[in-house]
C-alpha cells in the first residue's frame, strides 16, 4: 500500500512553472485569463475540469476509487445501480493506483472549486486534510453515534476531526506480526512474543540454532509505510505523536516515544534486523520472509495470501502464523498502525447528489456487501460483526489468527497538515533507525518541526 512518490520525469523548470499556473493561482483565474484569447478554447480542454461541483441532479453521481484488480468494485457499483434503478445511478471513475497521486489529483480538483467527484473512496489519512479546508461534508448527523458503534473504532477515529465525523469506514488494514511457527516450536517457544524483548530473545535463539539470516524485518525506509512502522513503535511504548485529545499539541518528545524509537533502533544495533532495513518497504520485507530468510516480519494482512502461493513463497502456511505486534512492556495494549479506506462526500456537490452518494455509502457498508467484498476480494471489513462471521474467518485465515490486532488498530496522527508531518516523520524515523541521529535527537527535532508545521499551518 501507501507508496507515495513516483512522479513522472518533470524535466524542465518550465514544466514546473507551468504546473503553478494550474495550481498556484486558482485555476479559475487562470482559465479566465486564458479564455480571453483565441487559444482559450484549446487551453480549456487541456486544463480539463474547472467548474463547480457535481455530476448533475437526478440522483446521478460520480464515485472515485483506484484500480481494482479483484473486479469486486465494479460489481458493487452494478449491484447498487440495479437495486436503485430509476432512482440513483453511480458511475465509477478510476483514479491513479498510487495513493499519493490519487490524493494530489483530488486535492487539485477541490482547489479548482469542487471538481466532478461526488463520492470519494479515500485513504484513512485524508479526512482531516480535506475537512480542515471544508472540502468534504460533515456526516455527523447522517452517520450517527449509533451507526458508528457497529464499526471498528480505529477507522472511525481516522474520520473524526474536531469532534465531527467526515467519513464512513469502508475496509481496513493493519500492521501484523508474521512469525515462523515451525522455527519457534523447534526452539521450544510455544507462543509468539508479547514484548519486543521477547521477540529479540526468540529471534536470537532461532538465528543461532537454525541459521536464519534475519531475525526481524519491517518497513524502515523514508516513506509513508516507514511512518506507520515508526508510530507503531511509539504507540507500543505508550507514546503519541500528537495529543489525542488536542491534535494541535505535539507530544512526540516524551520518554515513551523515545523509548519506542530506541527499541526500533535496537533491532539494528542488536543484529536482529539488518542495517539495510532502513531501506526496506513492503516488497523487501515480503521477499525476505517468503524466502524463509526471516524469523519475524511486520507486514499487512495481504502477505498471508502470498504465503499460500507456492510460486511466490518458499514457505507454507503451516510454517507461518500471525500475532498482534509486540509491546514495550508486558501487559500493554498492542497497537497496529491503521491502513484502509473510507468514504467521503464532496461538500460542493448539490444536496440531492450528496443524498444519493450517502445512499451508496449505506449500501456499500452494509453487512451483505462487506461480506461480498471480503469473500471475493479479501478486503477486510470495517464492521465489527463480520469478525465473528464463520464464512469470512474461513475465507481469510489472517482474521481468525489476529482479530485482536485488526480491531485495535490505531490511526496515524490526525491532522489537517498530515502531508507535511508525514514528510518530517518519515525523515526522522529513518534517520534514527539508520543511526544517523539518536532517538532522543530524532524526537526533539520532530517535536520542533511538527510544532513549526502547526504554527505555520494555522498562520496561513
Amino acid at each position: 500500500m501507501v507508496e507515495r512518490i513516483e512522479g513522472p520525469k518533470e524535466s524542465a523548470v518550465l514544466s514546473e512553472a507551468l504546473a503553478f499556473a494550474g495550481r498556484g493561482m486558482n485555476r479559475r483565474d487562470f482559465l479566465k485569463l486564458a479564455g480571453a484569447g483565441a487559444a482559450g478554447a484549446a487551453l480549456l480542454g487541456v486544463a480539463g475540469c474547472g467548474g463547480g461541483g457535481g455530476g448533475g441532479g437526478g440522483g446521478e453521481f460520480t464515485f472515485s476509487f483506484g484500480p481494482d484488480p479483484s473486479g469486486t468494485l465494479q460489481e458493487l457499483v452494478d449491484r447498487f445501480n440495479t437495486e436503485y434503478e430509476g432512482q440513483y445511478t453511480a458511475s465509477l471513475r478510476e483514479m491513479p493506483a498510487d495513493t499519493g497521486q490519487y490524493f494530489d489529483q483530488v486535492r487539485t480538483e477541490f482547489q479548482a472549486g469542487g471538481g466532478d467527484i461526488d463520492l470519494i473512496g479515500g485513504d484513512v489519512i485524508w479526512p482531516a486534510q480535506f475537512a480542515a479546508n471544508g472540502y468534504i461534508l460533515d456526516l455527523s448527523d447522517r452517520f450517527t453515534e449509533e451507526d458508528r458503534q457497529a464499526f471498528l473504532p480505529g477507522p472511525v477515529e481516522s474520520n473524526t476531526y474536531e469532534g465531527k465525523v467526515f467519513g464512513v469506514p469502508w475496509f481496513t488494514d493493519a500492521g501484523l506480526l508474521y512469525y515462523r511457527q515451525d522455527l519457534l516450536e523447534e526452539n521450544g517457544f510455544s507462543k509468539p512474543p508479547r514484548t519486543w524483548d521477547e521477540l529479540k530473545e526468540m529471534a536470537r535463539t532461532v538465528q543461532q540454532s537454525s541459521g536464519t539470516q534475519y531475525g526481524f524485518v519491517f518497513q524502515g525506509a523514508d516513506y509513508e509505510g516507514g511512518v506507520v512502522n515508526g508510530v507503531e513503535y511509539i504507540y507500543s511504548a505508550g507514546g503519541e505523536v500528537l495529543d489525542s485529545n488536542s491534535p494541535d499539541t505535539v507530544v512526540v518528545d516524551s520518554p515513551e516515544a523515545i523509548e519506542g524509537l530506541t527499541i526500533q533502533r535496537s533491532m539494528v544495533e542488536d543484529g536482529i534486523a539488518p542495517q539495510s532495513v532502513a531501506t526496506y518497504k513492503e516488497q523487501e520485507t515480503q521477499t525476505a520472509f517468503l524466502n524463509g530468510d526471516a524469523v519475524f516480519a511486520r507486514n499487512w494482512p495481504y502477505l498471508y495470501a502470498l504465503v499460500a502461493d507456492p510460486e511466490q513463497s518458499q514457505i507454507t502456511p503451516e510454517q507461518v502464523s500471525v500475532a498482534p505486534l509486540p509491546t514495550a512492556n508486558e501487559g500493554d495494549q498492542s497497537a497496529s498502525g491503521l491502513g484502509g479506506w473510507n468514504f467521503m462526500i464532496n461538500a460542493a456537490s448539490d444536496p440531492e447528489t450528496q443524498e444519493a452518494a450517502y445512499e451508496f455509502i449505506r449500501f456499500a457498508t452494509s453487512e451483505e456487501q462487506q461480506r461480498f467484498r471480503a469473500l471475493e476480494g479479501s478486503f477486510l471489513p470495517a464492521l465489527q460483526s463480520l469478525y465473528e462471521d464463520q464464512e469470512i474467518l474461513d475465507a481469510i485465515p489472517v482474521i481468525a489468527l489476529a482479530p485482536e490486532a485488526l480491531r485495535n488498530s490505531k490511526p496515524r496522527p490526525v491532522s489537517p497538515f498530515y502531508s507535511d508531518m508525514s514528510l518530517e516523520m518519515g525523515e526522522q524515523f529513518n534517520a534514527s533507525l539508520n543511526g544517523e541521529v539518536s532517538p532522543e535527537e530524532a524526537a526533539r527535532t520532530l517535536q520542533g518541526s511538527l510544532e513549526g508545521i502547526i504554527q505555520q499551518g494555522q498562520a496561513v
Partner: protein
Amino acid sequence: MTTPVKQKKRSGLKEEFGNPERRTAYYMILPALFIILVVAFYPITYSLYLSFHQANINAVGNFVGLQNYILMFQNTEFLDGLRNTLIFTVISVFFEFIIGLAIALAINRAFRGRGLVRAAILVPWAFPTVISAVMWRLMFQDQVGIIQYAATSLGVISDPILSNQTLLLIGAILVDTWKTTPFMALLILAGLQTIPGEVYEAARVDGASVWQRFFRITLPLLKPAILVAVLFRTLDAYRIYDLFWAMSNRELESLSTFVYKGVRISQLNFAVGNAASVFIFITAFAIAIFFIKVLGMQTSTEE
C-alpha cells in the same frame, strides 16, 4: 549577435511595420506569440511573483519580500539538495566528457563493424531513466544485489549502499555516467566528423606529433561541439530528478526533488518550494549565459 546587426534592426523598425506584407506576417504569428505568452512567459512571471509572497496552494497572501528565499537557504533539505546537485553535476559531467571524448575519438576511425559499435554504444542511453534506475537499485540492494555482494566480499564497504547518503550519491554519479556517456560521445563524434581530413594531412606534412595534432587541431576545432554537449549535459544534470528518486527511493535529495516535495506533497512548503524552482530557473539560466558569454559558445551559425 554583433552590434551592426542590432543597428540594422533598429533602423529598419519603421520599414518593418510600414510594409503591409510584413505587417500581415506579424499578424499571422500573433496567435503563436500569444500562446507562448500564456504557456511560458506568464507562468514563469507568476511563479516569480509568488516567490515574493506568502502563498499556499489555495491562496496568495501578503508580500514578504525575500523571506521565502531566506527560509529556503535555512532549510537543511534544500542545502542537502543543492550540495548533492552540485557535486553530482560537476563530477558526472566531467567523467562523461572525458570518457565520451575518448569513445568518440576511438569510433571516429574506420574499422570493420563501426556502424554496429556506434549503435551498440547507445544502448544504455536508450533505456528510460526510471527503468535503468530501478535496475541499478536492484544491483545495489542488499538481498539480491550483485554490487553490494561484490563490494562487501572484497571488503570495500561495510554499509548497505542504499542507506548511506554518500554511497548513494556515488552510485548515482556512476549510473548517470554509464547512462549518458554515449550521448556525449555521439555529440562529440558529430563534431569530429566536421573536421576536414586535409587539416591533419597538412599538419603531418609540417611534422606535428600526435599530441600536437590533438591539442592544436582536434580540440580547438571541436570546441563548439564540446561546448554544446557539455552545456546540454550540465543543464540536464543540474535538474536531475528521476534518477535520484527512482534509484534511492526518494532518499537522495536534489534541487528538483526538493521542489517536487514542496509544491506537490507538502501543503505548507509551497512558497519555499516555489522559490526553489525560481532559483533553479535563474541559476540554470546563469549557467547557460556563462557558457555562451564566457566560454564563447556560438548560438547560431550566422557568424
